[in-house]
């Protein structure tokens, strides 16, 4: 944890000192920034999952938590922009990395057997990442944009009990559920490499790292699987129109 805090401090310092260009200029700093933003998103994902899980367990809890998240000033005014910044940063940085890395081998191999020495997940973070990004687009279209319109454009009065029904309704279409499931599989692959690898990136490699890696791998499977379960569950348990 101390290392994480130190790293965070470092990133912040870099922000002050050299702005974003400073981070982009050093490969290790880029790597650390990627890892830290990734870890932040992993944390967010867990939180999101816990709230979603209540939709299966108890619709009332789901409604009340969703209401809180949707109306609390701190969440909406501070955490939400941070999250959006985190996503955008992780994406832009990932894209820059990918471009730089492609550039580092101008002439490609005629024969390249990546599969003999590294996992598919680790070699194709850009693919899994882009799928997740596309999914985020869909997800925003499904929830965030209607929510914004609902709240700020059309200015409906807040109804603290509307969330559950709206959510369940979204999972009526089997196509949408299918898209969600595929995205979660790719998310799992993204996490399978990304989560554990972020420890290596911030230099965390000691007697605890084995256990931590195991935790990360389990997390990478369990959380997306849980999201799939929720999506399928809600699809199968539609409310009467």
């Amino acid at each position, binding site marked *: 944890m101390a*290392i994480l805090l*130190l*790293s965070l*401090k*470092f990133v912040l*310092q*870099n922000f002050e000192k050299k702005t974003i260009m400073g981070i982009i*200029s*050093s*490969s*290790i*700093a*880029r*790597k*650390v920034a990627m890892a830290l933003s990734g870890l932040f998103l992993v944390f967010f994902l867990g939180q999101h999952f816990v709230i979603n899980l209540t939709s299966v367990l108890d619709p009332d809890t789901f409604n009340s938590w969703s209401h809180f998240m949707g109306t609390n000033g701190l969440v909406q005014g501070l955490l939400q922009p941070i999250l959006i910044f985190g996503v955008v940063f992780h994406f832009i940085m990932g894209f820059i*990395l990918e471009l*730089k*890395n492609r*550039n*580092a*081998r*101008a*002439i*490609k*191999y*005629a*024969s*390249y*057997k*990546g599969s*003999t*020495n*590294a*996992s598919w997940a*680790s*070699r194709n*973070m850009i693919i899994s990442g882009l799928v997740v990004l596309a999914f985020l687009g869909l997800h925003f279209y499904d929830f965030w944009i209607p929510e914004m319109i609902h709240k700020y454009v059309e200015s409906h009065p807040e109804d603290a009990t509307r969330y559950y029904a709206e959510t369940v309704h979204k999972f009526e279409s089997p196509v949408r559920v299918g898209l969600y499931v595929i995205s979660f599989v790719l998310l799992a692959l993204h996490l399978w*490499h990304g989560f554990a*690898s972020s*420890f*290596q*990136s*911030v*230099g*965390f*490699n000691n007697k605890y*790292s084995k256990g931590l890696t195991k935790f990360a791998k389990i997390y990478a499977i369990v959380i997306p699987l849980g999201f799939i379960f929720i999506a399928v569950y809600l699809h199968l348990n539609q409310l009467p129109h």
Partner: protein
Amino acid sequence: MKLTLKIWRQENASAKGNMQTYPIDGVEGDMSFLEMLDVLNEQLINKGEEPVVFDHDCREGICGSCSLQINGEPHGPDRLVTTCQLHMRKFNDGDTIVIEPFRAKAFPVIKDLMVDRGAFDRIQQAGGYVSVNTSGNTIDANAIPVEKELADEAFNAATCIGCGACVAACKNASAMLFTSAKVSQYALLPQGRVEATTRVLNMVEQMDKEGFGNCTNTGACEVECPKGISLENIARMNREYLSASLKG
């Protein structure tokens, strides 16, 4: 055995290269991969063609000269060996073998399969040393005891032969394993600790300047490294770099 070789031919650094096909017969399992290429070259010379140029020297897996990408892997399909230690018994009669140079923007091709790995030298020059003069008056070698485990770990990092297989294997052509091995060797020893801060900053800066890609922790370098240099060194370098940046 009979083989078909597909080899990258390129006249010089500025020329455009291409793959050429060469059939070869009479290859024996006891030959090393480079001895098989010797046979091919002897045939080419006798036919009046130019032999294939490749780097090689000690032919016992320690100088780090040989550097071939064989069927998509640096130093070929065997593990913990360099190309010169790879033997033809790892291949079968009738096989097609694709032979390419180690590819990275930071390793420009000189001719055919020979590349310029000067970038590695420059990374070392940026700080891969302890600043101590040859006076004959340094302290006695046993004046500072070093924990055996640390000494062994430093040695393991120091066994890197600088062949560049890590760069060649990495999908990003990253030189992190190479650089971190040297940083680690010194970071682990009391003699190297003194300059640890400036060393890691300077070496990483030079590494970036050379145009290597970024590490994305795929681990391919460790698998393909003929000396089995560990990924732990990269984690150590990241740590060293972070704490050096905070200090600096």
